[in-house]
């Protein structure tokens, strides 16, 4: 429990008011001298007890009312504190199999640590339901802070792609033990480029980096798993529309496309024409090299020259299509990796990207994990997590007030 204005707690001395009134107005002790008591009847003690009880209840209600009002004024807020001796052992998927940690896990379990997965909502290890979410260590730590546990031990691989957003500080009650993962070798894609040979793109990822390499192998030497991935070469037709002023640019563009065609397992069909003699040739891509704007009704994917757009990249995406932002010459084509960029937009490999992400084993080094900001920030975070009790108190005050009025009304009847 926390208070915003501690001084308001002095209002609790207001409790003296109803108590004093109660003590002063105990009329039972008062004696009225009267001519004769013949017409009076002794009120039974039971009735008196009822009355007294009634008055005590009223007194209690009134005291409660004052207390709640004072708490309201002093800005009571409370934290969701369950039992303080929660001890968790949270591990990332796969850690169970690590031999290095086996003794650690066992001893912690014996010391009363609950074993949980490092995932959203921290399911118990016993829970068989496996839900794989995209993990984010930052948000997981935020939810661990809310647990208000005494001690939390986290076993984690520190995958770099799971650190997103602002770096947070590690609270005192959390111990973060990291282990660099086993290097992973995987096949990104296999592309058939002749009748009996394939181009296999293999990845190799470890804690430091992920590398990719292409390898041409015979189709028979492939594993069964890789055979499943076999894809045919993509065939892409490209129309380069240019005017006379952009002749040099056109040549560079064609050279770049040819380089792509030779390097990557794909077939590019390149045609070029003058923009004035543009016929209705069907093409997957149109590369528009002219000061004139590209016609609006262009249905196909297009890369158009647009000098007005300036950016770091030589090719950027706008809402109308891809834009070439600079005039091309040898120098900036090499500097800006024109070939690579062309390849990436012409041959997007989402599946391959996903596979690569899945097997990404790169980690963040220990020193870069946590922000070393002063611990006060952590404290303010805790306060921000507290719940405001004001609506709850308002409801309580209303209820108590109502009850008090009803009982008082009954008593006066």
């Amino acid at each position, binding site marked *: 429990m926390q208070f915003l204005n501690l001084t308001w707690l002095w209002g609790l001395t207001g409790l003296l008011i109803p108590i004093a009134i109660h003590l002063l*107005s105990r*009329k*039972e*002790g*008062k*004696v*009225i*001298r*009267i*001519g*004769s*008591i*013949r*017409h*009076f*009847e*002794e*009120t039974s003690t039971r*009735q*008196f007890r009822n*009355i007294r009880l009634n008055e005590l209840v009223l007194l209690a209600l009134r005291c409660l009312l004052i207390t709640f009002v004072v708490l309201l004024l002093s800005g009571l807020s409370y934290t969701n504190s369950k039992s303080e001796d929660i001890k968790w052992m949270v591990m990332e998927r796969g850690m169970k199999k690590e031999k290095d940690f086996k003794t650690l896990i066992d001893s912690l379990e014996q010391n009363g640590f609950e074993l949980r997965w490092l995932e959203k909502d921290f399911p118990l290890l016993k829970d068989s339901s496996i839900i794989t979410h995209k993990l984010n260590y930052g948000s997981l730590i935020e939810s661990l802070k809310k647990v208000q546990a005494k001690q939390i031990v986290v076993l984690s691989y520190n995958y770099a792609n799971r650190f997103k957003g602002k770096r947070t500080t590690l609270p005192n009650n959390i111990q973060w033990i990291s282990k660099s993962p086993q290097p992973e070798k995987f096949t990104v894609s296999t592309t058939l480029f002749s009748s009996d040979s394939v181009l296999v793109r293999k990845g190799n990822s470890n804690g430091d980096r992920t590398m990719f390499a292409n390898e041409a192998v015979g189709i028979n030497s492939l594993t069964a798993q890789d055979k499943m991935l076999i894809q045919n070469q993509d065939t892409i037709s490209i129309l380069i529309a240019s005017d006379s002023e952009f002749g040099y640019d056109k040549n560079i563009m064609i050279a770049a496309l040819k380089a792509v065609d030779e390097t990557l397992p794909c077939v590019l069909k390149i045609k070029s024409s003058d923009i004035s003699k543009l016929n209705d040739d069907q093409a997957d891509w149109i590369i528009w090299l002219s000061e004139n704007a590209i016609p609006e009704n262009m249905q196909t994917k297009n890369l158009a020259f647009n000098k007005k757009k300036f950016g770091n990249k030589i090719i950027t995406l706008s809402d109308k299509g891809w834009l070439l932002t600079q005039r091309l010459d040898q120098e900036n084509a090499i500097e800006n990796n024109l070939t690579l960029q062309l390849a990436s937009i012409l041959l997007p490999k989402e599946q391959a990207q996903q596979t690569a992400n899945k097997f990404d084993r790169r980690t963040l080094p220990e020193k870069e994990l946590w922000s070393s900001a002063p611990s006060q920030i952590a404290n303010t975070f805790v306060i921000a997590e507290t719940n405001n009790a004001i609506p709850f108190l308002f409801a309580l005050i209303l209820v108590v007030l109502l009850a008090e009025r009803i009982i008082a009304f009954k008593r*006066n*009847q």
Partner: protein
Amino acid sequence: MNTQLKDLLKPEILNSVTGLELVARIIVEGFMSGSNKSQAVGAGQEFSQYRSYEPGDDLRQLDWKMYARSERYYIKQAAIETNITVKFMLDASNSMSYAEGAMSKLQYTKVMIAALAYLARKQSDTFGLFTVNNKNINTIQPRFETQQFIRFLNALVMVKSEGRWNNGGGIEQLFDHHGKELIIFFTDMYDDDSDLLHFISRLKTPRNEVIVFHIMGQQELEMSYDGSFSFEDLENNRQVKVDTALQKDVYKARINDWVKETRMWMLEKAITYQLVTMSDPFEKTLRDFLKVRNSLMR
């Protein structure tokens, strides 16, 4: 009760003879202002008028000198003079010291008696005072003297409420009836074994009139106390714990029955009974007194 009079109803004023006289005079003069003399005429000392003789008139009242002068028969008429004896009797038991606000029943009664005595003196009645409790019986015998009123007030001021009603000796002298008399008895009717009723019934004879003024407090009638109290009996000092809220209705009904019963009992004995609450104006009491007195004159 007007506010001017209310200011005067303080113990320090009521406990002095002159103060009590002043209060009595204010009450009576205020009450009598604008009233006319009695129209009743008959035989008496003070000449009023002549009227023609009519057959059947008493020949003794014929004015023979007038006949000698005018050879007509005249009957001589005078304003009727009455001298009634008014006996004020006061129950001076301790229950009369019950007080509401600043005034006790006894003080209220004293003011009433003083005012009635003043009125009686004005009408040249004789009046006396009898106060009774079991400690002493105080009597001022009725006399027709100028000092009588002061003597009367002096005795009235000295009256203290103490003890209880007298059942023993000495009470016999109060039943010494003779002539036309009006007995006015002030009490709160809190009796033991109907001793008060017995006493009242012995006061009444065919020749006299008895008025009983029953003095009650407003709160006493309605039990308008808030909360729970111990009530102590002034005469036997017994206490009883009462939650007034619970008992109010029962109590009120009981008091009503009691008053009704007493009234019926008085009515059977031809005794005038008046319930007076301490908030009533004094004029009402005076009017009741005059009404009964008139009935006595006929």
